[in-house]
């Protein structure tokens, strides 16, 4: 039996127990679990901040945040936490760590000790970011940290410095993690697991890792210059010394735009696995799906200034960045239509992961369409810095990513813990959350079209109606979130035992061939992937046991 095999496997190990098992860990599954726990803690903090923001915005006038700088601190911390300490740790560090080695037939990550420091540096970054909010005045800069607002003149305390070093430390961890993933995927695939047979989740992590590797150091350079401007008398962003605040915006967005793809690409991979599993069909257009992600990654590096249409960059630059941005609609369209074509004619089971996958597609299409609108430099002149932008990026990147994370959690929790989630409760959780986020963010399109600016704690009475609706949506979303934490608790405490493959014939990737929960070490004998006919078994090479 699968369970017996797990015990036999574990017996000859001598890995440490207690706190040392986690703090000293060189095991990709334990490290992945720590990433997911960190993400769930950070999500509570970041989620409570957004809840405070929506409460403040429920009605015109100041409700309870009388210190408007504190409102800015909330906006800043919410953004940082959600991007760097919720989505990235869960998707890349958590599910990536757990399932990239399992899916390619590797016994662990390439550099297990470095894997550990990647996690702990992320945790240290989170601690530094929390300190930044409580030490001094708090950073009220927004997650974009534009000077001169972030300069020493307007943020004289240590808060912004804590924020800078939080990103430095977490960024160093992410760069090391990216190197680890790339080497693991290039160097440790099981015999027969060619690049063109890798599951799409592995492809998505590979592309993401390259974006991290090449984008984060540019942020590190920009942050270093901000740090020296603030504390050591350089003038990179100081006009008085011949510097240029726009330099920061260029460098920040040269990192920042790939960063939003860093967040959404792993979601693409997760959704591809889920849709294929529950439609019981191989992914439609496997190679197109893989190379669409590659091209999104490449083009993502040459569109950054569409975040800067209103900064006075030249008309030629605006024309170029408009066109380059619109081109990204092509590979993303390939992804959307291939998911739909995968479902087409499949015998679809609407289990919780599939509900979340379909919810993801809805959200991503919604946010993608408004993205095409905002990509136009002319239209952005009107919509820049309004709630239309807030609605756009929450749909396309933030909530879409959260949906992929929820979907991944339901999809893989049986493999990770050996316990299956309660299906009925999970579906209720989906519908509460789905209705909540749409009631929350859809009205923000109308507010933005009517000209309501972002990052301001008060607004004229004319915006009252939709703001109230949006805050009701926030309440429903909060209920859905808390329900999710209850589902987690319920699953761990009394979830029924998960089979090796709880999903049946649709689940063809390698992680479903090992017992649930996955034993401490897996693939110690390398699986051999049988070569199917070209075009049939892409990403779904059926394993056969090695002799």
């Amino acid at each position: 039996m699968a369970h017996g095999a797990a015990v036999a496997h574990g017996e000859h190990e001598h890995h440490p127990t207690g706190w040392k098992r986690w703090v000293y860990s060189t095991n990709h599954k334990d490290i992945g679990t720590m990433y997911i726990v960190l993400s769930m803690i950070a999500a509570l903090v970041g989620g409570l901040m957004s809840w405070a923001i929506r409460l403040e915005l429920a009605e015109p006038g100041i409700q309870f945040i009388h210190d408007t700088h504190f409102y800015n601190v909330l906006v800043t911390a919410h953004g940082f936490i959600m991007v760097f300490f919720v989505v990235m740790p869960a998707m890349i560090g958590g599910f990536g760590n757990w399932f990239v080695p399992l899916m390619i037939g590797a016994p662990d990550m390439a550099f297990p000790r470095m894997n550990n420091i990647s996690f702990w540096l992320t945790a240290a970054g989170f601690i530094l970011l929390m300190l930044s909010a409580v030490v001094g005045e708090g950073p009220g800069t927004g997650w974009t940290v534009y000077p001169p607002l972030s300069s020493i003149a307007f943020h004289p305390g240590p808060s912004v410095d804590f924020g800078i070093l939080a990103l430095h430390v977490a960024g160093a961890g992410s760069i090391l993690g990216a190197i680890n993933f790339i080497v693991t995927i290039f160097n440790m695939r099981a015999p027969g697991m060619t690049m063109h047979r890798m599951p799409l989740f592995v492809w998505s992590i590979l592309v993401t890792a390259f974006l991290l590797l090449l984008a984060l150091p540019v942020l590190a350079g920009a942050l270093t210059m901000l740090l020296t401007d603030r504390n050591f008398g350089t003038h990179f962003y100081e006009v008085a010394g011949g510097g240029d605040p726009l330099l920061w915006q260029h460098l920040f967005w040269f990192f920042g735009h790939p960063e939003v793809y860093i967040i959404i690409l792993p979601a693409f991979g997760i959704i591809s696995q889920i849709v294929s599993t529950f439609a019981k069909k191989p992914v439609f257009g496997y190679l197109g799906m893989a190379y669409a992600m590659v091209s999104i990654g490449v083009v993502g590096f040459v569109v950054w200034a569409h975040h800067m249409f209103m900064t006075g960059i030249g008309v030629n630059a605006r024309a170029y960045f408009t066109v380059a941005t619109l081109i990204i609609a092509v590979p993303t369209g390939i992804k959307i239509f291939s998911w739909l074509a995968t479902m087409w004619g499949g015998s679809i089971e609407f289990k919780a992961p599939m509900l979340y996958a379909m919810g993801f597609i809805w959200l991503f299409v919604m946010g993608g369409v408004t993205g095409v609108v905002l990509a136009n430099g002319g239209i952005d002149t009107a919509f820049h810095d309004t709630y239309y932008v807030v609605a756009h990026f929450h749909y396309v990147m933030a909530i879409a990513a959260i949906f992929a994370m929820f979907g991944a959690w339901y999809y893989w929790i049986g493999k990770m813990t050996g316990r299956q989630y309660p299906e009925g409760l999970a579906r209720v959780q989906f519908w509460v959350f789905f209705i909540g986020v749409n009631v929350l963010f859809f009205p923000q399109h109308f507010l933005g079209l009517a000209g309501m600016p972002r990052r301001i704690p008060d607004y004229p009475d004319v915006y009252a109606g939709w703001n109230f609706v949006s805050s009701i949506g926030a309440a429903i979303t909060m209920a859905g979130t808390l329900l999710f934490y209850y589902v987690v608790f319920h699953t761990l405490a009394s979830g029924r035992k998960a089979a090796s493959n709880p999903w049946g014939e649709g689940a063809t990737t390698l992680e479903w061939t090992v017992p649930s929960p996955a034993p401490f070490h897996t693939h110690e004998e390398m699986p051999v992937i049988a070569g199917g006919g070209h075009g049939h078994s892409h990403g779904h090479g059926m394993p056969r046991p090695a002799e």
Partner: protein
Amino acid sequence: MASTAAKSHPYHMVDPSPWPALGTLSALTLAIGGIWYMHGGPLWGVAPGFLLLFATFYFWWRDVVRESRAGVFHTEAVNHGLRVGFLLFIASEVMFFFAFFWAFFNASAPLINSAAHVKWPPEGIVPFYAWGLPFLNTLILLTSGATVTVAHHAFRLGDREKMVFWTGVTVVLGAIFLACQAFEYSHAAFGFKDGIYPSTFFMATGFHGFHVFVGTCFLLVCFLRARRGDFTPNKHVGFEAAAWYWHFVDVVWLFLFVVIYLWGSMGFTGTYGH
């Protein structure tokens, strides 16, 4: 390793280790000490962080060297992974310097930003004469790139004595370069805080100098390891990585020399001092 007998794969299942957690503690300590210093605290505030950091480096890399010397863990597959991983690390370093070159060009050659300077170097700045000490440093670094290659080729042919000698020469050249740069910095005609020119100059060349220092230390460790007999003509990943790093540092300098020292001083219309 208890699982060595059971495994059928060539990869290294690393034992649990306290050093990553110690490294993280050092980063936290260093960050907090550094911010304390920046906001009026004493300079020794960064000392605990640095001590922990150097301890982490020592213990962690000591373990890696031991694992390498044990002979069974670093298979060809593992070595291939280490090489690819190090090349990726260098790629990320290239992007780090990319940011500083961007800052330089943003100030000196305003292609995108019409608001930036049109005169470079800015009024009142006396740059370094490129064909003086900077050119000497170029020759030193280029020579050191050649000597490290001589060492590598000699070792590939099995001549360890020659490899040790030329690695040592490379280390000395790296140290001479750093001494020249320190001399240059102390004779600069512009102060660190004198606006955008010194900002870009010191940030780009300063971080490069730091990388030369790191590369020199790396080569020094390889020199000692080679004398001890850690490397064989077929297996010397640490030395290869150090040599690659050295070439990377070399190429960055060529860009710095051509762009910042040479091209960056062409708009200078005054007379050089000294």
